[in-house]
């Protein structure tokens, strides 16, 4: 009887914890949505901030984040996928692969502010890109590289070996097999990783603080050597260092809502894609 009661109490507690976590998510999202929804308008999304960031819109920040996402993916996706091809298809299972995998894990655990420091030292100062979209994109690309490598590796590993043997048996070279057989079947899963990276990159603040982000720019960036505004940094500025914090609060809520919407939409997309793909694989 006593044991049964203990079990009931423990299980009740665990269920409570789980609901509590759902409650946390709902309260954060709810808070941002309720306060931000009234700010969202066509003007908010398509105009520049005005009156010391207390009115107007966030268009330059949206554009900046868009550029940074594109820039970092141009850098990280090809390199990440190639790295994954090397470790899964070429390198076998020896010491080298274990070492590379350890380094990838290490890179994944480096705090984002350290990427910011590194990006500033290498891209901004040493290579003299200055505070620019190029420097920011490279820094963010490096940050998201481990994620792309890991998801691509999993995608490649999920391709059945019979596909490879079949292709090789038909006389195709290893490279042809990878290009024409392995990569196409792994592509949807690789894309899931890319989508996840988009969510990650668009939300990061610390790496762009000293590599690209500008407090306010009157014009949109014209080249990759220009500074840019970005959504997460804009939210940080609005929340902590605006000229009139109370007056810019609504702008902050609106920015937070747009940011969270972008990040969560990409996250959900990746989740659903993965679930559907898993189902498909199971059917096969």
């Amino acid at each position, binding site marked *: 009887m006593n*044991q049964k009661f203990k*079990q009931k109490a*423990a*299980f009740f507690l*665990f*269920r409570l*914890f*789980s609901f509590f*976590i*759902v409650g*946390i*998510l709902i309260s*954060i999202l709810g*808070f*941002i949505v309720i306060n931000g929804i009234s700010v969202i308008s066509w003007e908010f999304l398509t105009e520049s901030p005005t009156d010391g960031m207390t009115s107007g819109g966030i268009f330059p920040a949206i554009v900046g984040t868009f550029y940074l996402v594109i820039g970092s993916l141009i850098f990280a996706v090809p*390199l990440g996928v*190639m*790295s994954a*091809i*090397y*470790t899964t298809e070429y390198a076998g299972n020896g010491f080298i692969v274990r070492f*590379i995998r350890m*380094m*990838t894990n*290490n*890179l994944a*655990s*480096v*705090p984002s*502010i*350290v990427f*910011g*420091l*590194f990006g500033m*030292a*290498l891209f901004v100062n*040493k290579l003299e890109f200055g505070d620019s979209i190029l420097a920011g994109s490279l820094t963010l690309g*490096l940050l998201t*590289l*481990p994620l792309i490598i890991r998801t691509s590796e999993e995608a490649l590993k999920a391709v059945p070996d019979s596909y490879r043997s079949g292709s090789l048996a038909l006389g195709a*070279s290893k*490279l042809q097999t990878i290009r024409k057989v392995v990569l196409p079947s792994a592509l949807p899963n690789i894309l899931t990783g890319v989508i996840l990276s988009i969510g990650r990159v668009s*939300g990061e*603040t*610390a790496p762009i*603080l*000293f590599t690209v982000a500008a407090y306010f720019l009157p014009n949109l960036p014209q080249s990759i050597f220009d500074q840019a505004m970005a959504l*997460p940094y804009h*939210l*940080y500025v609005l*929340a*902590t260092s605006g000229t009139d914090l109370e007056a810019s*609060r609504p702008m*902050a809520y609106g920015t*937070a809502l747009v*940011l969270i919407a972008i*990040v969560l939409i990409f*996250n*959900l997309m990746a*989740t659903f894609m993965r679930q559907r793909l898993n189902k498909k694989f199971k059917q096969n």
Partner: protein
Amino acid sequence: MAQKNLLGKITEKLTESLLTLSGALTTIAILFITIFLFKEGFGLFKSPAIEDGYGLYVHPENPVNQLHPLDVKNMYDEEIINWNELGGANQEIMVFRIDDVFDYYTDEDLGENYSLLPEKLGYIISDHKNIIAYVPEEFAPSVTQGSKKVKVHNTTLSDFFLGKEWLPTATPSPLFGALPLILGTLLVSLIAIVLALPLGLGVAVYLSELADERMRKFLKPVIELLAGIPSVVYGFFGLVVVAPLVQKAFNLPVGETAFTGGLILAIMALPTIISVAEDAIRNTPTAMREASLALGATQWQTIYKVVIPYAGSGISAAAVLGIGRAVGETMAVLMITGNAAVIPSTIFEPVRTIPATIAAELGEAPSGGQHFQSLFLLGCILFLISMIISIVSEMISKKKTYKSL
């Protein structure tokens, strides 16, 4: 035909070497980060801890030849007021800054473009046996009239790790004591892990042992969304909602405290803890569970006497990774911990963490200066901590735990 074959082979070889190179990419990145961070950071120990381009001068008869940066700071703060505290003669210290020269001479006395300033400084110094003068090297007092330059020590490793004062822009001597920042980081992370670990473990057990398929399908995306929310949004939420709540609940002068930071960090560390712990619990062999149940143990007894011990290493890995997440978190902590670089005595005081310090100060630190270098040194600490955590968590999760059963 043969030529085409050859071309194909060359492309194949080229592509393969390209692939090999990209395989080494993360290793190269780690190497580069190490080089750049440490090269910049360790520059701090290589120059005297005094503002660039300035020097300290005393009377030639003064026996003091070198000073510790902390002593310099205390002299100018008038906490050290007698030379005998520093091994000099028993006389009161006379603190002199460059602006004080106008107490002795007029603008005209100093000549055009202050060309006579070094000479006049020399006179002032030779007139006062108890003086310490902080002047730009460009106007260094001439030795002929009698003055002696005092050497200021470089910041040392122990100054950095054990120093209690973080005053990177103080003049004449900036102080780079990172102890308050290190303790602040540890305190906030500790609060986070104490709150998050039991909660996360509970959810992990629920997900892997108790929840049905529908519940799991609902909870998994919830946890992923929680992991996906950008840290700056957590910071904003903490600033606007949690900090005022904490302030009211504990009746504090400010809501931005170590506790507030720990609270938000706990939420941010939860997804990591849950997913790693859940994986570990799920990997417990069914045979173990069944054996325990067959012996008459209840499901709960099985969970906490068999499953959790078996998954112990995985759960510790979850805790370690959770701490790693908390230690490196920047934006949220920057926005809600109050940013006071002092050693905290309770958890309801503002603190400042290492990442928050870097984020807050790097923008104002002149590139290549000591302040800049000190922030890179903080980055080195963070980088090393993350490396250690990553390697340790890998080691524990690989370790088999049959022995502990």
